[in-house]
């Protein structure tokens, strides 16, 4: 494990700037050469309630937050009540001296309490109350003896849209810093020395998906806001002119997906992102994309269900839904990145696969992946290239009339977009012949179903031959394997580090492609596994059901969590220790 592990938690009401503070701190550490994973926890309301940002910093790559915290920044009393139990022995608490609370109780628990006049300083500055958090951020820099300038540069950039606001926050941070230095000295909690800034990014899964889309040449993005996918819309709306991409928020998700399909039919790579309820409304059109053989990329950012559920909390409850959404049977890709870095590369991949096979591609994320921050190296664009499908550009040169659904060996027909000279492009959601005319002929129906089946077989090969469809971490030889998909990757990888430190060597099998299911690859990987532990953020163990279905093999042990909260590494560790015992 890295030599440095530092976990912080900032808590307060919605509207107190908890998320922004957490993010700024994450960026500060990243610019200071560290790696961060930070999560924001908030209920579905705009003001009040309780929000907290919980992050772990390390000098080596990190994949998840750790449960126990070194530093709590309490913007209100509630934060103390809720999170004290997470504080490590000798952990620090920054608390506004205006808040009434029982200090001795905290100290009895071994906490080091730093009362800082957050409100007082803000008042002195004549600033808005929300600026309290900048004071606290400044103070925290002093406690860990981090370079204040790094924080200030982040504040200037993040709030730079309105200079006077940035400056007052900078001033607030400085005051917080000096207050601690003067009262307690530098580095009372610990010392984290800035390292060199290597240009790393702090990115959420949502931003990674948005960036992946841009890189993939997406020219049209459609979305109806839905937590936790809305930030993709916000990000893209912001940069729409920089990338000449059209970003539209139509009347509902049905319009969204149909616009996207219409756009790709006419040659513009398109994506949509939504969550369960919106995805439900898109299901009919997903079948349409399959039947018309028009590519489309759909991001399904899961949240806690069923139905409206807990909109701002995480879950992996929609896997089976994504796999089987829409009537009839047709090939589709379902891909689940495990972290923001993968989300970027896989999104580019998703566009390429959608066009290569002319099928819908569903990217499964969840709130924990979509909204949490991760430090990642700047992307390697050589590994993220646009690969166009069998498309006909400009003019169709064939000697016979163009047939959109021409029968070919591999099931894939060359795709012209309308406007192509000499090609009349007829697509049809009804069963159709090669030209795209509707027909209910029995023979034709069989031919077309088999055409689509051939694509599925080809896609299966694609998945089996692709190293990324299943990834293995840890001790590849271990007879004990954890298996999972999506955002649980983070907690599991962190758990692996901890277990390794304890001398327990297991492997982690991350299933990235859920459809087509990488059956053969998994069979090989799991051949010598004796104990298979399934980890999922859901009630029924949906990946488990896929293992049963495709491998005729059931997991031996289950670690399931379904209260809207992600796994913490220690939960995985405990379970593994139980299993190895």
């Amino acid at each position: 494990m890295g030599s440095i592990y530092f976990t912080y938690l900032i808590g307060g009401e919605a509207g107190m700037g908890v998320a922004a503070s957490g993010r700024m701190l994450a960026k500060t550490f990243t610019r200071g050469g560290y790696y961060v994973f930070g999560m924001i926890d908030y209920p579905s309301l705009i003001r009040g309630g309780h929000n907290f940002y919980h992050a772990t910093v390390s000098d080596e790559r990190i994949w998840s937050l750790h449960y126990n915290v070194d530093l709590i920044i309490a913007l209100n009393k509630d934060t103390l009540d809720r999170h004290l139990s997470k504080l490590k022995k000798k952990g620090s608490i920054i608390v506004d001296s205006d808040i009434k609370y029982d200090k001795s109780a905290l100290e009895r628990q071994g906490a080091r309490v730093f009362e800082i006049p957050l409100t007082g300083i803000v008042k002195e500055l004549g600033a808005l109350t929300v600026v309290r958090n900048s004071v606290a951020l400044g103070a925290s820099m002093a406690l860990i003896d981090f370079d204040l300038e790094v924080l200030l540069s982040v504040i200037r950039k993040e709030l730079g849209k309105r200079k006077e606001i940035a400056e007052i926050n900078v001033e607030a941070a400085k005051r917080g810093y000096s207050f601690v230095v003067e009262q307690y000295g530098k580095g009372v909690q610990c010392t984290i020395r800035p390292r060199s800034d290597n240009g790393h990014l702090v990115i959420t899964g949502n931003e990674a998906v948005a960036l992946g889309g841009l890189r993939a040449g997406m020219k049209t993005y459609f979305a109806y806001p839905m937590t936790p996918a809305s930030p993709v819309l916000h990000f893209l709306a912001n940069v729409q002119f920089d990338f000449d991409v059209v970003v539209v928020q139509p009347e509902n998700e049905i319009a969204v997906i149909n616009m996207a399909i219409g756009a790709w039919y006419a040659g513009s790579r398109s994506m949509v992102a939504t969550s369960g309820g919106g995805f439900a409304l898109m299901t009919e059109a997903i079948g349409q994309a399959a039947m018309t053989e028009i590519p489309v990329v759909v991001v399904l950012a899961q949240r806690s269900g069923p139905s409206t559920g807990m909109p701002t909390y995480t879950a992996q409850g929609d896997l089976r839904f994504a796999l089987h959404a829409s009537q009839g049977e047709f090939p589709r890709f379902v891909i689940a990145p495990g972290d923001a870095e993968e989300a970027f590369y896989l999104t580019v991949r998703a566009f390429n696969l959608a066009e290569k096979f002319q099928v819908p591609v569903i990217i499964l994320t969840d709130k924990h992946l979509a909204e949490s921050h991760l430090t990642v190296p700047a992307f390697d664009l050589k590994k993220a290239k646009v690969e166009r499908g069998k498309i006909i550009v400009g003019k169709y040169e064939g000697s016979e009339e163009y047939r959109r659904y021409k029968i070919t060996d591999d099931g894939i027909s060359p795709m012209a977009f309308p406007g192509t000279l000499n090609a009349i492009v007829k697509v049809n959601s009804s069963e159709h012949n090669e030209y795209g005319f509707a027909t209910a002929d029995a023979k034709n129906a069989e031919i077309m179903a088999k055409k689509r089946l051939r694509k599925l077989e080809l896609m299966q090969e694609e998945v089996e031959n692709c190293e990324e469809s299943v990834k293995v971490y840890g001790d590849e030889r271990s007879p004990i394997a954890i298996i999972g998909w999506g955002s649980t990757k983070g907690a599991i990888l962190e758990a692996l580090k901890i277990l390794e430190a304890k001398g327990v060597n297991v492997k982690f099998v991350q299933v990235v492609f859920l459809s087509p299911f990488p059956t053969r690859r998994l069979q090989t990987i799991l051949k010598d596994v004796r104990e298979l532990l399934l980890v999922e953020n859901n009630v029924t163990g949906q990946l488990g059901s896929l293992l049963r279905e495709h491998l005729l093999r059931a997991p031996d042990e289950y670690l399931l969590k379904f209260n809207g909260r992600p796994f913490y590494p220690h939960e995985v560790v405990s379970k593994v220790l139980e299993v190895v015992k």
Partner: protein
Amino acid sequence: MTITLAQLNTKATITWCPGCGNFSILTAFKRALVELQIPREKVVVITGIGCHGKFGDYVNVNSFHTIHGRVLPIATGIKLANKELIVVGFSGDGDAYAIGLSHIPHAARRNIDVKYVVHNNMIFGLTTGQVTPTTPKGVKTRSTPYGNPEEPLNPLALALVSGATFVARGFAGDVAHLTWLFKEAIKHKGFAFIDVLQPCYTFYNTYEYFRRRVYKLEDVGHDITDFEEALKKAYEWNDKIPIGIFYKVRKPTFEETLPQLKGEPLALRDISDVNIEKAYVFLR
């Protein structure tokens, strides 16, 4: 190269009932394309689900037979991807006013440059004759065997108050007039809405009913720039039923308000190596 009517025919056998109003709409549309001499590759026809939905099979231009009710979003996506295409949607009254209703006011106020033709036969044809939002009150259908209990919708009024910049009504019994309407709609820059009174020969034959009542707004000096007047005309539905252009106004289209769309159509842009590094500023 001139475009001829013959070139617009396809190999598909037409399966509409003899006497169906859809034939006239098809003829009028083909004539409009010929008269305007629009290259076939430039036209995309989007059709919904219903008898009208077979339209795309019968006209030799690009076509998209979409699912029930989604003509407008598909059309919008197409137009955004390639603004040089002429994008014409064909819906039924069920397709447009029942399942697809939510898209009309939004397409209208967005003023996307899409033409939208509703084959309004006041019945679900293909599903063998059930009530639709435009079926008159009291009419017996398969789903209202004792008479439709609901007041019908007024599609023209709806389009008008939604902000449509071109609102018209046609009648399948008058091909020449319909051809003219199609041409005007195609020439109009912006969202053009045409409700076509289309008798369903089999389930709701209104030929005689309408033939006796329709008159042309052009013949009575209707001022197509007068919104209030248009709305009044939209409510004229008795012994006299107006057809023609009710309202027309030039406003910026949705595409025109989007600076990203200046220049080449999106579909033709180079996407081989997009430089995403300029977005990194948001991530540090």
